[in-house]
C-alpha cells in the first residue's frame, strides 16, 4: 500500500523548524541562567534602582496641580486665538447669527478665565 505524502507536509516541517529555531536559544538561555549561572544575590544587587544611588522616599506621592491649571488657562487663550483669526477675516460678510454664536463662544472662554482668576490660579505662588 502506497500512500502519497500530504502536499502540505513540507509546510508543517518548516513551521516546526521555525518554532524550534526561535525557542531553542530561549530554552538554552533559560537553562544557563537557572542551572549553570553562579547565583550571588545581595541587597545592592537586588535593588530596583541601578544607577549607583539608593532610592529614597515613596513613589506614591502627590504632585502639585498648579502647572496643570496653568496649562488649562493657556488653552483658553490658545483656542481663543485659533478661532478669533478666521472670525476677524470673515467678519464683514458674516450674518448676525454667526456673530452672536461667536460672541457666546468668546463669553464661555472668558467665563473660564474669570473663574480661574477668582480661584487664584493666576497668582503664582
Amino acid at each position, binding site marked *: 500500500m502506497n500512500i502519497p505524502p500530504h502536499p502540505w507536509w513540507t509546510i508543517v516541517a518548516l513551521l516546526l523548524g521555525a518554532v524550534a529555531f526561535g525557542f531553542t536559544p530561549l530554552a538554552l538561555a533559560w537553562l544557563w541562567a537557572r542551572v549553570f549561572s553562579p547565583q*550571588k*544575590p545581595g541587597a*545592592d544587587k537586588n535593588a530596583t534602582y541601578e544607577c549607583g544611588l539608593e532610592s529614597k522616599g515613596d513613589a506614591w506621592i502627590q504632585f502639585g496641580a498648579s502647572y496643570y491649571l496653568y496649562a488649562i488657562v493657556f488653552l483658553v487663550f490658545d483656542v481663543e486665538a485659533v478661532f478669533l483669526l478666521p472670525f476677524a477675516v470673515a467678519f464683514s460678510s458674516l450674518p448676525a447669527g454667526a456673530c452672536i454664536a461667536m460672541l457666546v463662544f468668546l463669553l464661555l472662554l472668558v467665563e473660564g478665565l474669570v473663574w480661574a482668576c477668582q480661584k487664584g490660579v493666576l497668582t503664582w505662588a
Partner: protein
Amino acid sequence: MADDLKDLKLELSKNGIFTTTLEELYNWGRRNSVWPLTFGLACCAIEMIATTMARYDLARFGAEVFRPSPRQADLIIVSGTVTKKMAPQVVRLYNQMPEPKYVIAMGACAISGGPFRDGYNVLKGIDRYIPVDVHIPGCPPRPEALIHAFMTLQKKIEEQALRGESRPRHLNADLPSEFPVPEFGAHGLEPAQNDEVFLNETGNPLRIIQ
C-alpha cells in the same frame, strides 16, 4: 594542566590536530566577551571613549558593547578621579554587577588620587574598596594603555583554573558578591578602607596614613 598533556597538545598541533579542554574553551569565551559598563568619571573617560572608536577599536577584543546598566556589565573601568562623594556610588555599581566581574583602575587618579591626591575630597585609589584586577598609570593613559590593560585582563581570565583555590570569584561560593559601601563620616569616608580588599603583597591589610 600537567606538563605531559601540554607536550602532547603541542605535538598534536604540529601535526595539524587541534585539541582543547573545556576549561580553555570556557575561558576563551569569557575573555572575548567582556562587556564594560558605560561609566566615565573624568578626563580618562575621554580616552576610554577614544579607545572604543574606529581608530583604536576596542571591538577587536569583544568589548565594544558598553552597557548602560550594571546588570549587564562584566567590567567597570574606573576612569578618572573618584571623589569621596562618588566612592559609595562606585562601590554600589560594582555590587550591582553580576558575577564574574572585573575592575580596571584607569589613570593616576583611580589608582592613587593622582594630582588631586592632596585634596580633602579625593579618594586615594579605588582599590581601597573594591578588588582591582588591572591598574593603569598615566594622566591620562593613552588608548593603547587601556588596550594593554584590557589584554592583561584577558590574559588573567585565560589563565584562571576553574577548580582549586585560585578559581574565579563567580565559581567560589564563599567569596562575597557585594562589598561594604562606605558612608559619609565626620572626617571623610567610613571605613577609610576595606581590609578584606586593600592588601599588601603579603596579603595583610595595608595601612597608609591619610
